């Protein structure tokens, strides 16, 4: 079979055909995956909520509050957990842009008295094997049960109390900053 010749009309037509087919098939796949994608995202959020909050029986996702803040571009998400209609804690999404590779997003769960219940990492792009160790038990456990009003969230090198991850001071610093931000918002909106 002979190749099509490279006349102007042939080139325009074949490229147009390819882009049209590509465009439509992408739209089709997008439609197909939209539902599962949203579901997967929601599931991840609920799993994170279950991890950072004490037991709850309401639906925090449906009752989330969006707080506008002049310090941060995106509004801050706060999830309130109730058990038998009693306030048992809230989860605040904190973030920092100062990670080793940009944005770090974490969810911090607070008890009603302001102590940290648990922290879950939602989004990060840190170096695998180094910065990603912030998801490890060894690093996270030092935050549990601490009250940020008395526990300095800076790393030891900067005069704080956080034991940084070996080789990932920048990540640890950003993590502390994100936690601090979550705490500030929690106190402001209690």
């Amino acid at each position, binding site marked *: 079979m002979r190749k099509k010749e490279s*006349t102007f009309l042939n080139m325009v037509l074949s490229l147009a055909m390819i882009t049209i087919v590509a465009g439509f098939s992408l739209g089709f796949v997008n439609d197909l995956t939209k539902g599962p*994608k949203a579901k997967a995202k929601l599931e991840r959020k609920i799993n994170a909520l279950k991890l950072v909050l004490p037991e709850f029986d309401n639906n925090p996702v449906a009752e989330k509050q969006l707080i506008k803040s002049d310090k941060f571009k995106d509004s801050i998400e706060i999830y309130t957990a109730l058990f038998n209609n009693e306030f048992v804690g809230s989860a605040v999404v904190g973030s920092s842009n100062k990670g080793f590779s940009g944005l770090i997003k974490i969810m911090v769960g607070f008890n009603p008295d302001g102590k940290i219940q648990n922290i879950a990492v939602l989004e990060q792009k840190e170096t695998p094997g180094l910065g990603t160790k912030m998801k490890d038990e060894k690093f996270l456990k030092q935050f549990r049960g601490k009250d940020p009003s008395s526990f300095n969230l800076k790393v030891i090198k900067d005069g704080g109390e956080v034991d940084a991850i070996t080789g990932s001071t920048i990540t640890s610093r950003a993590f502390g900053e994100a936690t601090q931000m979550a705490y500030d918002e929690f106190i402001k909106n209690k």
Partner: protein
Amino acid sequence: MTKKIDQKQNFLKGILKENPVFVMLLGMCPTLGVTSSAFNGLGMGVATLFVLLMSNIVVSLIKTQIPSKVRIPAFIIIIASFVTVVEMVLEAFIPFLYEQLGIFIPLIVVNCLILGRAESFASKNNLWSSIVDALGMGIGFVIALTILGATREILGSGSIFEMKFVSEDANTFILFILPPGAFIALAYLSVLFNKISIKTLS
């Protein structure tokens, strides 16, 4: 009439004689970027294998319809479409892997291995040969990335597929997880690979 191709040779060449990573040094960007652990290397390899297979199939099917002056943009559109499909499907159905590879998936578009096979093989050969070529090259790529990832993970984090075999506080060669370690590991592995393959082939 094109000359008949020995399909077994066609398949094996991607794994040994023309291994995309260790011999042809193609697709270095994802190779060096994601292989900080064996699992990442494997995931990236499989995603690339899928895109390579699909693009080879499509390019081989429509090769006579593309005027040669615009073939490169046409190939890139085809490849980019499949990469986007992979990204959406992963996000929807395997969110765990998507989280691990997230930022590297769009990079598959600029992997010159895929464009290279479309240009030098699929656009000149029939469908069946192109499929075999894509499978051979893709599997060669998966193997190479997994070996490189495993080497860096063993030396750099003291673990393999996230299973640690040294104590938590042990000093490992962190260098191997960082970008320079990728170059060093790749260089030594290439030497080793070529030495072994030359010996087995001759």
